[in-house]
Every structure is written in structure tokens, then in C-alpha cells.
């Protein structure tokens, strides 16, 4: 149940998806003790909302992928507890949104569905059973660029892809995460969307998302297999990724299905070290 939340929606005057986010926010406020932070007013004045924003969990409702509301939350340094993007939800429900800025039947029914889902989902916040038993001990090589120090694991058990994700492989399991390059490049990470437990992922398939005020990074899985656990600590504390994307900020664990095949498109420390160094130099000069 969404109750006693601060809700930061899209203002809803540019696109139909925005309109729905605004209406959904209103409905959530009518049904429980939630409070809306008006994005337009909030932009020019902190005073009115600072107290609620700091005391309550925050639900961000973005209309479209421009994610104005998320970006505003980032600007204000707010911690996002939960968020949805209406355009994505519409897609997930097989609904094609129109250009209208008034609620019609179609929008109304999506709105009701999302309202129910939001309130239902939160009743079973109990995390799905995770069977994490991997203990990974990393050995690092580092290099410095400007004031930043980058660490790269150099154990033989750690494999990389050129999309800056690593896999620590023990037996038929792998723990997956992103490298220091991703976390430095995104800067402050505000939100982590984990993959679903039980999902079957192909090599290079999507394994969740990481979001900062700058951008969204889609994790490109280095290996194929089944997701058997996720780093639940990261859901509540995405900033662990900035602190340490290896021991603390790992993302998920996968039961490997085709590791011998996957290996063909994986690289080891030596190669990745060179690639990452080059990327860092390209970006920072």
C-alpha cells in the first residue's frame, strides 16, 4: 500500500503519459495519506516541500523516458524509494498512448490498473528468497586519472565484456556487476532496478538498470543463465555502487547454462584493463 509517501509526479501538460502520472498521483492522494510535490513549484522553491520530502519515502512517477521527475529528485538530492514510468507501464500492458491531454476511457483504465498494482505490490514487499552463497575475494590493479582512482579485479575467476560488466565465476555460478568505469561515469547513482529472480538471460541480455541524474545504464550480462539472486542491499542503497561496485555493489547472481560458449565472447583482466584505460582517457582527456 502506498501510504504516507511523498509523491513527485510529472506535471502532465506535455504528453498523455504525463497526464496519467499526474492523475495517478492525485488518485493516490485521495485514497491515502500521501502528499504531492508539485514539480513546477518545487523547482522554484524548496521551502514548502523540504520537510515532507525529507521525512517520507518518495514515490516518483515519470510520464515518459525524459524522466523529468526523476531528474528533479536528483537535483534536489532526494532518495527515491519507488518509481514508475508511465510510458513503460503502458507498453508493458500493451496500450498505445495517444496525443491527447484529457483522460479518455483508455487512460482511465490504465490508471486504475496501475493504481491497483502499486497498492498491491507494496503489500508483499517481502523480498523474494535469494540463495546467495558466493564468497568472492577480489584482488585489484588500479590506475589513476586526474583525481579518480579506478580499480579493476585481476583474479583469474573474473571475466569482463566490453560493456564494462564483470562476472566472478565459481563452479556453475557467477556473480555479476559493473566496473568502476560505469560508476564513475554515471556519477551519483540514485536508483537500481534489479533483474527478476528466475529470469533466463542470454549473454549480452539486459540484467537490470542503474540510474543516475546523468543517465540510465542497462547492464549487459557477460554470461547466459538463470538469475538466482539479486543484491537486495542495493535496492535500498544504490549508492553502494559508487562506494564499491565489486564487494558491496554487485548486482545479481546467475546459474550458468552455457559458460563454455559464453567464454568465447569474454575477456580477461589484461585486455579489459587496456580497454578501460583507453575509455577513461577518451572521456577525461
Amino acid at each position: 500500500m502506498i501510504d504516507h509517501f511523498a509523491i513527485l509526479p510529472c506535471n502532465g501538460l506535455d504528453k498523455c503519459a504525463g497526464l496519467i502520472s499526474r492523475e495517478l498521483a492525485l488518485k493516490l492522494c485521495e485514497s491515502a495519506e500521501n502528499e504531492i510535490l508539485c514539480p513546477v513549484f518545487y523547482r522554484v522553491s524548496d521551502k514548502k516541500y523540504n520537510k515532507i520530502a525529507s521525512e517520507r519515502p518518495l514515490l516518483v512517477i515519470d510520464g515518459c523516458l525524459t524522466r523529468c521527475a526523476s531528474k528533479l529528485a536528483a537535483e534536489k538530492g532526494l532518495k527515491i524509494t519507488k518509481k514508475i514510468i508511465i510510458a513503460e507501464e503502458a507498453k508493458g500492458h500493451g496500450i498505445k498512448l495517444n496525443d491527447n491531454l484529457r483522460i479518455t476511457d483508455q487512460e482511465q483504465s490504465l490508471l486504475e490498473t496501475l493504481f491497483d498494482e502499486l497498492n498491491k505490490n507494496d503489500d508483499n514487499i517481502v523480498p523474494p528468497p535469494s540463495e546467495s552463497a558466493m564468497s568472492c575475494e577480489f584482488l585489484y590493479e588500479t590506475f589513476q586519472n586526474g583525481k579518480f582512482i579506478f580499480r579493476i579485479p585481476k583474479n583469474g575467476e573474473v571475466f569482463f565484456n566490453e560493456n564494462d560488466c564483470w562476472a566472478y565465476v565459481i563452479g556453475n555460478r557467477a556473480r555479476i556487476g559493473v566496473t568502476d568505469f560505469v560508476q564513475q561515469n554515471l556519477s551519483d547513482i540514485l536508483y537500481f532496478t534489479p533483474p527478476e529472480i528466475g529470469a533466463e538471460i542470454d549473454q549480452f541480455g539486459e540484467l537490470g538498470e542503474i540510474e543516475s541524474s546523468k543517465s540510465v545504464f542497462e547492464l549487459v550480462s557477460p554470461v547466459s543463465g538463470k538469475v538466482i539472486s539479486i543484491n537486495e542491499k542495493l535496492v535500498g542503497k544504490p549508492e553502494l555502487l559508487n562506494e564499491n561496485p565489486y564487494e558491496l555493489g554487485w548486482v545479481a547472481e546467475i546459474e550458468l547454462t552455457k559458460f563454455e560458449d559464453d567464454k568465447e565472447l569474454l575477456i580477461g583482466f589484461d585486455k579489459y584493463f587496456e580497454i578501460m584505460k583507453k575509455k577513461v582517457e577518451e572521456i577525461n582527456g
Partner: protein
Amino acid sequence: MSETTFMGVERSLINWKPTIDYSKCDYCMECVEFCPHKVFEVRENEEIRLIVKNPDNCVVFCRACSKTCGVDALSFPDKNMTTQRIKEIRKEMETHD
């Protein structure tokens, strides 16, 4: 500049790039601002004001710019097919060595 190979395969042989759906694009230019690899080019005075100028600069398997596009106008090739193709090319390369 960008990598010239991906997993040892010449980048120009791999079909991975964004495609702009001009019926949706409203030229907000979020994608251009976002991507550091000079994949897109803005053409101020032309009717089509944005093109994919340097497809081979696009990082294989990256789809990040599509997440900044408010109207969902950017699409990418199928990841599985691309992976298969990369493997095939690597096999061909081995037999030619």
C-alpha cells in the same frame, strides 16, 4: 574516438546502431546531448534535422540513448542475432588465419 574492433571483430562488420523513427522524433536532441560518441549529427537547416552519422561509433550492445528519448523513437537491432553474427565472423576469421 571509438573502438575500431569489438571482441576482435572489425567494427564495421557489426550491425549495431540506433535507428530513428522520424514519425515519432520531435528533435528534442536529448539523445545527441547524451551520447559522447558522436554517433548522431544535427543538421540545423535541413528538413531532417537529425541523422545517425557515424553508426560504427555506436558501442555494440549499448542502448543508452533510447532511454533518454521521451517519445521512444530510437530502436536497435536484435541482440541475439548480433551475438550470433559476431560469433560467425570470428569463426570465419579463424579459418582464414
